[in-house]
């Protein structure tokens, strides 16, 4: 069961690199939240009940419901829909994504030992690299935010790769991180965006003191 969920999670990462619309980004982030919730429920049964409840409910509420809802609200408010107009950036992103997948799998097979769960380690590494690829290749700030969320999800999965005690601590940190970043993005677009019109990172270079 966990393997099918993990595979589905990796498929969402592949589709993140080729999708062109921010609505799809937000939907995929929501789907990843649901997958992580299911994985957390199945995987963390060894920890005590209050911690399990905290981790799973926090994952469900924030990663699967609140963050996607905030992202959709930002999309509705700002009317930013497309990542870019040409199809070539998707091809390059996918190419890099495949390289990242191969690198993650090779590294996992090479370095993981008996204390580290190979599947979670490999998928977490791939998620981290996918987030970085999104941030590096896309110019719009919204994409950077998505890349950051993907990295956070990767860190959450990574915490599962090294034992069942870590997710509780890491989730508290991630919880603050995600909420702050999405709120900052919302404030940026809804309050500052009217004056600055800076949804593209490259336009921020024009800002002067």
């Amino acid at each position: 069961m966990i393997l099918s969920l993990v595979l589905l999670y990796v498929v969402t990462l592949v589709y993140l690199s080729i999708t062109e619309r921010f609505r799809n980004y937000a939907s995929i982030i929501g789907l990843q939240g649901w997958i992580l919730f299911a994985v957390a429920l199945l995987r963390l049964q060894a920890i005590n009940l209050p911690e399990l409840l905290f981790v799973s409910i926090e994952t469900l509420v924030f990663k699967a419901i609140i963050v996607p809802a905030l992202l959709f609200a930002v999309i509705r408010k700002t009317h930013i829909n497309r990542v870019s107009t040409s199809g070539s950036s998707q091809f390059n992103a996918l190419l890099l994504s495949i390289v990242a997948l191969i690198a993650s799998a090779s590294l996992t097979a090479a370095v993981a030992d008996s204390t580290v769960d190979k599947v979670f380690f490999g998928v977490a590494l791939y998620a981290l690299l996918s987030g970085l690829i999104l941030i590096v290749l896309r110019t719009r700030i919204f994409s950077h935010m998505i890349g950051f969320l993907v990295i956070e999800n990767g860190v959450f999965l990574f915490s599962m790769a090294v034992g069942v005690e870590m997710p509780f601590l890491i989730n508290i940190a991630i919880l603050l991180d995600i909420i702050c970043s999405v709120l900052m993005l919302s404030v940026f677009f809804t309050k500052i965006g009217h004056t600055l019109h800076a949804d593209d990172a490259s336009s921020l270079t024009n800002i002067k003191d």
Partner: protein
Amino acid sequence: MMILLNTLLILCAALAIPGVINRTRARLAGRKGIRFVQHLYDVRLLMRKDTVYSSTTSVLFRATPAIYLGTALLALLFIPVGDLDPLLSFEGDVIYFVYLLALGRFMLILAAMDTGSAFEGMGASREALYGALVEPAMMFALATLALLFGYTSFREIFLAAATLNLHQTIVLLLLTYVLLKIVFVESGRVPVDDPRTHLELTMIHEVMCLDYCGVDMGMIKVAGWFKTAALAMIAANTAAITCCFHWWLVAPLAVLLTGAAVGIVESTQARNKLSRNTTFILTLTALAALVFFTGFLLQSNINI
């Protein structure tokens, strides 16, 4: 006897798949549709016609249809139908199968360029690009089968696949999806290519065959059916391993799965813009790589 039955079944599947596609498309459009075997009548008509060759073409152009048909037929004979033995089989035939398909494509590309036509050169260039992109996906898919079952022959792979655990079943179902998508690309179907298009600028596979007619055109069409059937049978075998691996299930599954899938996609989806095709095919490679590495990690006894 079983080998003969295997060969007959796979040939019947090759002839039936285009009929199922046509019938599915017609039903979904609310039409009665053409006869189930209309494509066979069309090819019979082509076989009766004489061939005309352009004066600019060489012997390469004339030999290509026969080579293309020969490679497709030879590739088809390596594929088992469920638990039956194929006509041809040896250790490493998985790689040989891919090379046979690649040789057929290579010859068709050369023949298209031999005509000196700008349109055919354009089609050859597109076919080469898509072929280069889809071959890694196919190699990853077949390598996954070889990795999971420890053999490099189709016959051995599918015979060894008697006992499966849940993890292998999940990997094989995802692999079936990838193989089915590869069928779309290799047979030049929507959303990658549209065999019914009449505009040369948007053609991919069809534009390479514009200078062919008569018997040559008939051979190219039949070779396309054989290629589709070979890949469809691999996909059906992979799907059937997970539940009930018998020839009486695999043969109809290959016809229905591919025929219905292609028919439904052609009825419900538009063709991709050409610039999107590369991304579409590369996505298949990514999924195939994912399946391969999951299989690889499964082989190293991970504990989930």
